[in-house]
């Protein structure tokens, strides 16, 4: 069984990676309808909440980048991730290839048989977050594990058609 040494707070190399990710801009500043605007509209979030969730998404990407273990996001962060994946050039070229030099794949759950594993991974992600960022993840974006895997029954709705 492989035992990994406990992760302590960020080392110099990790800080450099975090700075790169933090400074990576998903929004196109020349665009009138940006990634943040689209994220807010599609999820019915405020701009403030969308901005904060994107920031947390960047932290999540950082955790994946520096860890050898799979990481599980909250549902909110997952929505940012899904949307970013649609901006293919930004995600695969600008972020993965040119900024991180690492491909980060999104793996949708295979079904209820993975639920226990996902829960465990999510808890580990929260722990890793706390260690490396020296603060607890904000609860309104990183839900507790029970809520995370209970409130997942979403449906896409056309608001113009359905009122």
């Amino acid at each position, binding site marked *: 069984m492989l035992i990994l040494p406990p992760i302590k707070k960020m080392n110099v190399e990790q800080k450099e990676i975090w700075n790169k990710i*933090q*400074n*990576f*801009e998903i*929004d196109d*500043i020349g665009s*009138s*309808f*940006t990634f*943040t*605007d689209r994220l*807010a*509209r599609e999820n*019915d979030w*405020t*701009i*403030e909440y969308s*901005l*904060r969730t994107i*920031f*947390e998404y960047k932290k999540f990407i950082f955790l994946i980048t520096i860890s050898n273990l799979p990481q599980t996001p909250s549902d909110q962060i997952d929505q940012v991730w899904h949307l970013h994946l*649609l901006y*293919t*050039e930004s995600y695969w*070229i*600008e*972020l993965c290839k*040119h*900024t991180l030099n690492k491909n980060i794949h999104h793996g949708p759950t295979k079904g209820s048989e993975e639920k226990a594993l996902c829960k465990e991974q999510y808890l580990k992600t929260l722990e890793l977050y706390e260690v490396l960022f020296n603060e607890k993840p*904000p609860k309104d974006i990183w839900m507790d594990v029970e809520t995370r895997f209970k409130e997942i029954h979403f449906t896409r709705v056309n608001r113009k058609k359905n009122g």
Partner: protein
Amino acid sequence: MKILSKITPAEAMLIKDDVSLELKDLMKYTFMDLLLKKVIEIKEINKKLHPKDKYIRTYTYVVSGKNFNKYKPKNHELIYVRPFIKSQSIQILFKHFIKMAYESSNGIWNYKKTIRSNREISQFFKQTFLLNLFRFSILTGNGVKIKKEISNYLNEIDQNIDNLLHNDKKKGLELLLSIGGNIFLLKNLNFQLLKKINKELLNHQKVLYADTYDSDSDWWLYVDFFEDDYMFDSYFDSFDSTLDSFDSEFDTSGCSSCDSGCSSCGGCD
């Protein structure tokens, strides 16, 4: 005039002239006041999007300022400050920051209500259910009195400030420091002159003020502004143009712009 050292420009404007105020002005002066106090700061970064990018672009961000942790925000300032309370290291693109604040303001009536709820000025406004229901705002007797005093005081400074800054800088500086962010309400103030304030004069003011420490005043936050060469006043225009650019499409009840879909990319080099 002591009260002007304790209230923000938005609060002073509301007391002076509630009726004709626009949301844009209340928001703008609040934003500039927070910049002045270095609770928030603007950071311009020239960078490539990624190391292999051919182009260097200028990104303008709003970040928490050096006085962020020292400052207790008022209710109406939270629209700007709240994201940093939750994540102090977040950096937000300028245009998103203004849009976020506009959305959080919930419209002119609600924003005025938020300003009126601040401890320093709530006593100057009548608060009744009917007034709230019909969206009227009426000053109390004390409110009418303070309105007159504030208007007269600011008019007097306005008429004399240019002369003072040329001929009696010490007096001019003392006056400006005593009214804090309300310097934005002066029509005759030449901000370029402020950049030439002698550092010795500033130090003298600090010594004088240290003997009369007032914990309710933000005097110490404002004095920083005069020490730096921070070119914050250019952001007046940026604020207006940013708010105007999405004001017509943006609705506080939700974004209704852009119904376009996506397009494909022909491929990259």
